[in-house]
């Protein structure tokens, strides 16, 4: 059962950072999964009074505040236009509207959950995390780190021209995904990102170790890369699917992603 002794709605990020250095204090994002744990929190730190619940868009980037809810991101016109509707596709299957009206982007990214559609979607793009003390870190690098006491202020997505595809496989609607896949083709460089999550480990961009796609996307290179992903992407089994099933899905979704982002 979740036990919270004190609650502070902070007035500055500095105050939040100071409080967050103590082991028994925790930042509450949307609080969604926290209630299911058995943790004792001395001080719950609430960032909801800092105006970090906005999505700012300019010519170069989207700046997504850490307290922006998943629902805000899902229905954001500019971000949907930029991703070709992939943000809506990635988020609309997460539990329900009521859940997504509370769960925050910052909480999802900080958690770096293996099953996260949000992480898969954003790692696929040219995304960064703005941390209060450390500054700007590439999201892919941040996802590979262990938890620390810094604070996510914003998620920044650079507006490079992209063709994007997103698909997740679920056993049943609103359940956690068996596998997630984001495919992104950057029109400025012609390079692609295939990002696979819920392996069930956290989302990773598949490295094109053998330069299969370096000479372009063709029917042949799609087949080869999908086969490479199926054979080489680390997967594991859990209650939602075996490692073999996930590897097979990874190959299928990679193929689908490459076909779609090359249209």
């Amino acid at each position, binding site marked *: 059962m*979740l036990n919270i002794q004190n609650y502070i709605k902070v007035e500055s990020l500095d105050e939040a950072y100071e409080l967050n250095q103590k082991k028994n204090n925790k930042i509450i994002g949307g609080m969604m999964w926290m209630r299911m744990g058995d943790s004792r929190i001395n001080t*719950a730190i*609430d960032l909801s009074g800092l105006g970090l619940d906005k999505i700012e868009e300019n010519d170069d980037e989207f700046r997504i505040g850490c307290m922006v809810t998943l*629902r805000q991101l899902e229905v954001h016109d500019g971000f949907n236009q930029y991703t070709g509707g992939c943000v809506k596709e990635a988020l609309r299957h997460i539990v329900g*509207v*009521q*859940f997504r009206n509370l769960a925050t982007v910052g909480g999802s990214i900080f958690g770096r959950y293996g099953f996260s559609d949000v992480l898969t979607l954003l790692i696929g793009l040219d995304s960064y995390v703005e941390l209060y003390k450390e500054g700007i870190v590439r999201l892919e690098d941040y996802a590979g780190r262990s938890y620390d006491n810094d604070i996510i202020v914003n998620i920044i997505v650079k507006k490079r021209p992209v063709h994007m595809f997103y698909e997740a496989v679920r056993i049943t609607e609103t359940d956690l995904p068996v596998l997630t896949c984001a495919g992104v083709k950057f029109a400025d460089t012609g390079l692609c990102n295939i990002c696979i999550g819920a392996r069930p480990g956290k989302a990773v961009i598949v490295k094109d170790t053998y330069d299969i796609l370096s000479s372009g996307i063709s029917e042949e290179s799609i087949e080869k890369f999908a086969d490479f992903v199926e054979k080489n992407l680390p997967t594991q089994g859990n209650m939602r699917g075996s490692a073999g099933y996930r590897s097979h899905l990874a190959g299928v979704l990679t193929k689908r992603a490459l076909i779609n982002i090359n249209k």
Partner: protein
Amino acid sequence: MLVNIKLNGKSVVSDIAADMTLYDFVRKHGCYSVKCGCETSNCGLCTVFLDEKPVLSCSVLAVRADKCSVTTLEGIQEEASEFVTFIADQGAEQCGFCNPGFVMNAIALFRENPYPDENEIREFLSGNLCRCSGYEGQLRGILNYIKAKKEKELQ
């Protein structure tokens, strides 16, 4: 902690524990339509409006609702009555346990999108679990409600 929450239009000032959920708060203040059906932030039965947005009251701290408006089914009886009566007449539900959360979220859907199509209904209400109807009855009931509403407006 002292909070001032506008619950169903009335200001409620209360000294509460830091870890009290909004679900416990509204129940403590007599809103028994709000129930907790799953303990895993999944079922939608505890749906309330927090500043007009449908949220899971079981998964948000009551202190976060300080200076906010909270609405439960008790607070929108008039708005909900036509829909609730229609759904009951359609025999759309069986045991009715999930009904309050379902009605709250359906009202939220109609406020956002007065004439949703089948896919929009399925998508918006996917976070409201029902363990006896299989959703078909509810879906049929809502589609008939929208059809009746449209016909009424045309008259």
